[in-house]
């Protein structure tokens, strides 16, 4: 995906791209994956296998298989979703905004922009590759709780963070 071509029509007249990059592609599930993985595997083992053993044969076998697939899907989603999203993501920083683009193979390109200004709550973690967070957005299926938005698992994160601080302080 050509970032400059994708962003060209969206940029303001005096807006310039200061940095663009992509997250690493490693398998690196976060701490948040722990509970869904335990729940999903436990669910598949107890509900699915329980139904399978309790109802040897007959239509309930289908129910057992359905429950096992459901439990394994929950665990797989928690383990691999973050890595897949990172593999499809492209990031860009301009002198006004941060762009997060997800080039989804089935749903197409989804571009969101997040303002960087003096009110922006900029944070980074101490890991390498680094994650820089700068915004919050509502969770899609969980009502009023918010999730953190940022540039995840990027190389050279400290330099990007410095540029973002300059943008926040109006130095660009």
């Amino acid at each position, binding site marked *: 995906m050509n970032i400059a071509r994708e962003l060209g029509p969206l940029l303001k007249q005096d807006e310039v791209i200061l940095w663009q990059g992509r997250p690493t592609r490693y398998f690196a599930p976060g701490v948040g994956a722990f509970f869904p993985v335990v729940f999903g595997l436990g*669910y598949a083992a*107890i*509900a*699915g*296998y*329980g*139904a399978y*053993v*309790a*109802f040897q044969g007959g239509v*309930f076998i289908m*129910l*057992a298989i*359905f*429950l096992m697939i*459901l439990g394994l899907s929950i665990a797989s989603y928690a383990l691999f979703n973050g890595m897949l999203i990172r593999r499809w993501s492209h990031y860009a920083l301009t002198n006004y905004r941060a762009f997060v683009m997800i080039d989804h193979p089935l749903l197409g390109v989804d571009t969101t922009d*997040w*303002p960087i*200004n003096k*009110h*922006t*709550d900029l944070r980074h973690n101490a890991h390498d590759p680094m994650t820089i967070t700068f*915004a*919050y*957005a*509502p969770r899609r299926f969980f009502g*009023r709780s*918010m999730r953190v*938005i940022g540039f995840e698992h990027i190389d050279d994160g400290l330099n990007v963070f410095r540029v973002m601080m300059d943008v926040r302080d109006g130095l660009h």
Partner: protein
Amino acid sequence: MNAQEQSARKAPVALGPGEHVLWQGFPAAPPRIPARPAYSVVTLSSAFGFWAYWMMVPELPFLRVALLVPILGFLAMAAYPPLTARRRATVFFNSARYTLTNQRAVSAHAEKTIEVPLSACSKIHLGKGERQNLILWNVNGGTPSQPVYFHQLENGEEPYKIAQSLLDTLT
């Protein structure tokens, strides 16, 4: 909703100095709740699966007691839409009022009022579909950090355009 009810609901919100109303509206239908067949199938069959395992382990009373948690939990999840969520959605639908001023977005109904002050850090999202949900929130996570939802709008484009042009002037 007839014209009399609409005008009664259009009672003005308490405005601050320099504040004026840009748009006011109501939901065209109750908010969507998870009452689709797939939800019931998943929750009820989950309860059934745990109950099947519960039947298999009569010699392990501790495990049987532990298994009651997911069994009752999934049954409660299956019962939630018809028993509680539907009633709450009706209360919400009958009293909800959405207001957009030049300083904030307010969603008020009989049980709760939520508002978001609009600033250079505010963001807006319009959902898809015949009746749209409009979401306004502050991306800097400041207080209050909760988003405001304008649920099930008949013509969501109108408040979206008003709010977007307002946010463009603020940035």
